[in-house]
């Protein structure tokens, strides 16, 4: 699918998402808010995995970092908007610091190191205690807003963040940085000798990726009003987002969003029926996606539409 078409599709989805809270109940409002949240994480992965080719399985690290920055800030009476900005920026800074040594590693090594980084953050927070709450978890101030209004506001916050993240990815796909990343994904030394500062490009990509992920984590913390390391740094967050990105199509603009929607809706419908074996089903789903649609839904659609237009051409030629 061309960028133009993807953007048009994104615009339609956005309009639908804007009017949705008027027609759905609180259960589906929560499901959709979760879809947006995990879609932001998937877009974050899209930048570092889809564009740069660095498989950051441990990106949940930044979800947790964002959540804790937002949590600690909100507890220190920082206004919500600023707390989210701090979560976003702070996560980017953390990625910048750790990206410098870690992004020298390639392939599996980087993937695993990113997971280790995620686990290391858990240990650090557990041992840090203090304002982070340590092993006890961290309660956040509870909003005085009426719940219906509050949850709608959080819905729009997530939607807003997802829209921004998608616009960033769209901009990236045509930018110098986007070219640099796709070039180094295919051949790092090839890109270097053509003048691409690969180290800078990779670190920037991870910072953008972390900013998105951290932002989602920050809003999530505000939404949940209680965070602890187990759920904030849950590797399952990056794994789910990774699958959504694959499912939708990595390196595309709206693929991760479509993937998140499909995955989360299917999961929600299945979860409610089989809560006791949901990991078993999730495992089977992961395997099925990798084997059946490794290039993602967006590519399936482009291939189908290419075939359709080819058929149309043929018909026109005959007529």
């Amino acid at each position: 699918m061309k960028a133009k078409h993807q953007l048009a599709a994104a615009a339609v989805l956005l309009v639908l998402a804007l009017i949705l809270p008027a027609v759905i109940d609180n259960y589906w409002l929560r499901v959709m808010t979760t879809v947006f949240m995990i879609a932001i994480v998937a877009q974050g992965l899209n930048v570092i995995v889809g564009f740069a080719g660095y498989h950051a399985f441990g990106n949940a690290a930044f979800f947790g970092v964002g959540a804790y920055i937002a949590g600690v800030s909100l507890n220190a009476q920082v206004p919500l908007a600023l707390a989210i900005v701090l979560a976003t920026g702070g996560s980017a800074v953390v990625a910048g610091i750790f990206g410098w040594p870690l992004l020298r590693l390639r392939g599996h090594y980087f993937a695993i190191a990113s997971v280790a980084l995620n686990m290391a953050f858990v240990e650090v927070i557990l041992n840090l205690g203090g304002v982070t709450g340590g092993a006890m978890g961290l309660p956040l101030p509870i909003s005085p807003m009426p719940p219906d209004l509050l949850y709608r506001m959080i819905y729009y916050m997530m939607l807003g963040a997802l829209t921004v993240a998608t616009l960033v990815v769209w901009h990236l796909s045509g930018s110098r940085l986007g070219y640099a990343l796709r070039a180094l994904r295919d051949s790092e030394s090839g890109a270097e000798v053509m003048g691409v500062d690969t180290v800078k490009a990779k670190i920037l990509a991870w910072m953008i990726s972390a900013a998105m992920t951290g932002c989602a984590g920050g809003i999530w913390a505000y939404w949940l009003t209680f965070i602890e390391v187990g759920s904030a740094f849950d590797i399952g967050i990056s794994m789910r987002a990774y699958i959504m990105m694959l499912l939708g199509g990595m390196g595309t603009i709206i693929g991760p969003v479509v993937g998140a929607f499909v995955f989360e809706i299917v999961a929600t419908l299945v979860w409610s029926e089989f809560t006791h074996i949901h990991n078993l089903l999730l495992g089977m789903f992961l395997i099925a996606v990798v084997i059946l649609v490794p290039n993602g839904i967006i590519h399936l659609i482009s291939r189908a539409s290419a075939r359709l237009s080819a058929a149309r051409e043929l018909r026109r030629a005959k007529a």
Partner: protein
Amino acid sequence: MLAQTIVNGLLLGGVYGIATIGFSVVWGVMGIINLAHGAYIMVGAYIAFALNQWFGLDPFLAMPFAMVALFVIGYALQAFLLNPVMHTSLLLTLVVTFGIDLFLIDLFVLFFSSDVRAVHTAYSGSSLEIGPVLISWVRLVAAILSVLVAIASYLFLNRTRTGQAILATALDREAARLMGIYPDRAYGLTAGLAAAVAGAAGCLASTIFPISPTLGISFLGAVFVVTVLGGIGSVAGVIIAGFAYALVQAFAATYLGANYQQIVAFSMFLLILIVRPQGLFGKPFYGES
């Protein structure tokens, strides 16, 4: 205290070593990081537990049964799920093995519940006393058996035709094909044998650690560190690294406190990855690019 700490480390080193061999060889030969490796260890432990519960079989004697069962599981998963994915994208195998891990853990929760179990034998509590140092019989037997399994794995890979075929495939898939070795079959065998050794490790672990379906998750962290420490794909390196890791852990537990064990492990891991990604004792022989 120093002597006891060293003995504690040495006794567990062998178990960490054989828990890691399969993981390391699979990574080295095929370039696959098998996130389900911990689940294989868990399955091995439950086989020992079940045979002990139902037939009163000694967990050490359950080893051959667990090894055969896991060979079949490992071979089948490689042949049916992983080989096809490997041909399209090596990195996607990570997702598949993660899926297998989730599947196996939940399956065992379904059958055995998530309760923590233990395998008891007549000699479970008894120890050998040498001066101030206590040596648990169970741990001593487990240590000896693990070293034997490790030596057998090493000899298999380096001294038999099949082992040589596996290593040849690792070095150059195309050249191996020309020599009449079918990579897919070699991969199946590698995965099967790796799972079998993990099953043996599971039996040994069942005598030392409490068992639950998430047993493998706690092992996987150690397995990663030991693999990277020993040099990916090197059996000898893994064994030495297993002991090194267990000693460091024992010292961290004794002198810093159990809380710091994990931090020490992660720090070791990240440091080695960054400073010496080829491991302390080996070099990767799988060309990643």
